[in-house]
């Protein structure tokens, strides 16, 4: 089993917590993981990405080679596009459609959506709205993770257990809120797949 993915977003959006949740679930299964992160200056609102590699055996490179990612999971649509050279021929994109326009000359969002929607199996949805409607406006990252849950080589209950472990120290309400958003997004993706 080998599974490579890119998690992309804007510094401050919480992509590292997505990686941490997946990481816990991977370790619980006894698999191996390499997770290359961006720390430092770019975390101040710049483009950030995590290369996440999961395998049941040894993993060589810390970086995902181009053309090999089975999944691009993006908290922002332009950031999903940024990593297209890494997406495998049969790879999938799951992305939040809410833009973060914190620089001059942000491209036309309609053109970004059109390009993303050309990719087979792309799931583009409003994770900000979904998180808000499910009572945890801050859990946008868990919405995107939930929408991608069926793509990952991990059972959904294992991800849920990892979310509970991750937010435990913040109290039961935070755990419940994050789980509710994760589940709602998972259900949305399932419904979308069966349409």
């Amino acid at each position, binding site marked *: 089993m080998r599974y490579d993915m890119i998690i992309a977003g*804007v*510094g*401050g*959006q*919480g992509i590292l*917590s997505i990686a941490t949740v997946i*990481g*816990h679930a991977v*370790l*619980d299964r*006894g698999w*191996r*993981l*390499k*997770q*290359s*992160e*961006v*720390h*430092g*200056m*770019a*975390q*101040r*609102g*710049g*483009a950030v990405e995590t290369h996440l590699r999961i395998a049941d055996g040894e*993993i*060589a*490179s*810390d*970086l*995902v*080679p*181009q*053309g*090999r990612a089975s999944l691009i999971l993006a908290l922002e649509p*332009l950031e999903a*596009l*940024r990593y*297209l*050279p890494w*997406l495998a*021929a049969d790879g999938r994109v799951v992305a939040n459609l809410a833009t973060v326009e*914190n*620089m*001059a000359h*942000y*491209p036309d969002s309609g053109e*970004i959506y059109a*390009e993303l929607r050309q990719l087979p199996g792309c799931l583009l949805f409003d994770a900000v709205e979904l998180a808000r409607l499910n009572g*945890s406006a*801050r*859990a*946008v*990252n*868990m919405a995107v993770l939930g929408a991608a849950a069926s793509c990952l080589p991990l059972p959904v209950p294992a991800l849920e257990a990892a979310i509970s472990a991750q*937010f435990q120290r913040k109290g039961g309400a935070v755990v419940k*809120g*994050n789980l509710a958003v994760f589940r709602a997004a998972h259900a949305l993706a399932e419904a979308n797949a069966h349409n």
Partner: protein
Amino acid sequence: MSMDRRLLLADEAIAQGALDAGLSGAYAYPGTPSTEILEYIQRQAPAGVHCEWSANEKTAVEEALGMAYAGKRALVAMKHVGLNVAADPFVNSAITGVNGGLVVVAADDPSMHSSQNEQDSRFYADFALLPAIEPSSQQEAYATTRYAFDLSEKMRVPVLLRLTTRLAHSRADVTVDAPRAQNALALPDDPRQFVLLPANARRNYAALLAKQPALRQAAENSDFNALTDGPDQSVGIIACGLAINYVREACDGAPSPHPMLKIVQYPLPEHLLRRLAEKCRTLLVIEDGMPFVESRLRGVLPHGWTIRGRLDGTLPYAGELTPESVARALGKPAAAVRAASALVVPRPPGLCAACPHMDSFLFIKEAMAEHPGGRVFSDIGCYALGALPPLEAIASCVDMGASITMAKGAADAGLRPSVAVIGDSTFTHSGMTGLLDAVYEKAPITLLILDNGTTGMTGGQTSLGAGRLEAIVRGLGVEPKHLRVLAPLKKNHAANLKALREELAYQGVSVILSQRECIQTAKKRSGKHFHAI
């Protein structure tokens, strides 16, 4: 999760390795990509292990050397350019040698993800005649840290542990071993060992030179260096540190078809290199950082060998290694890859919403607009983002503390007004001595210390001057009537602008302390995170 397997960044694996090696004290100044080493020790260390931040990398190395003098194990961590600041004690610690184990960690940043240059710390170890170790994986980061302490005590010299950003900030499962107890306090047997008067230094230097064959032998025999055979001798591969991972990736899990030397421990294992060269007339050197091994190799081998690497363009000279650049160097066909989207534009970082530096820059920019011939020299920290649009307010960002001294030098040249902008943590790191230069000569400069009470860029570590900056500035001799303290808030804009205008007109040293808490640490304190992290 099993007890002994943990998901650790290589930075954290080094920290855990040091703790398990019986560490008594860790010293550091924060700097990407090294910050997480001391942060991890602060979270995990048992009571009594020193783990406070130091004022700068030089003080950190000296404090660690003091602990090693006293017979205990000490670790120092810094980013690559921090080793420039600490170069004086680092190079001299090779001459004193150590008593307890001393491991100096330098985290290099090829591709300059968060730095000003790509310098390769292996050159420092070579220059100081000290062993260097560059682990290839998170697990090896743990193991080599433990080994580095043993080597340091066995050979009585500091050991440099070098890694690069890609490994420092990558997480993997790491298996940890049983911890070792700390050393007891034990003073050096020889009272002259640490007294580097010329006579003693010459004797110690001879002893250091005499250790070189044993240090080289340790690298030749190191469990971390490995020469492996392969049927295809058209090229022999030399892979340093994490480069081996990209070679394995390019081979897609199969053993390398070429003979290969993995180098983790230095000094350069020349015997292993010659054995590889006996098999292969063409050698490809793959290293993350500068062509350190490649350039040494050209002096080791006689004519008739082809050396390929960063120097002949087989790999790009600048920038970190990637799976793609290594696969190309190995002659692998390029994988079919999707074209990049034409829509994608860069997304540079910027100051946070409600950042106090923004309000400071707004009055600085307005005041400087009245002096088109004047310039603002700045420094290393979040406020370096003041160089980007829409502010475009600063003329320099060079090294820790250089704002003040460059402003003074430009003032010496006749520039008026000559302004320096520095953060509080950078000021106590390397700005205070430069301010003393300016005070001594009564140089016409205006210094703004943007005091947000923290080391912001690296994530909010302790700033040692917090609450003491006024006293420090006054103590350095700045005239009290030209030391202003103000709060960078929108409602104070007019008053702040007036204060700066007045100080720009003063032909001597003025200091404006612009004080307001970093918005990120303020949020952390109040428990209000931007996102549920």
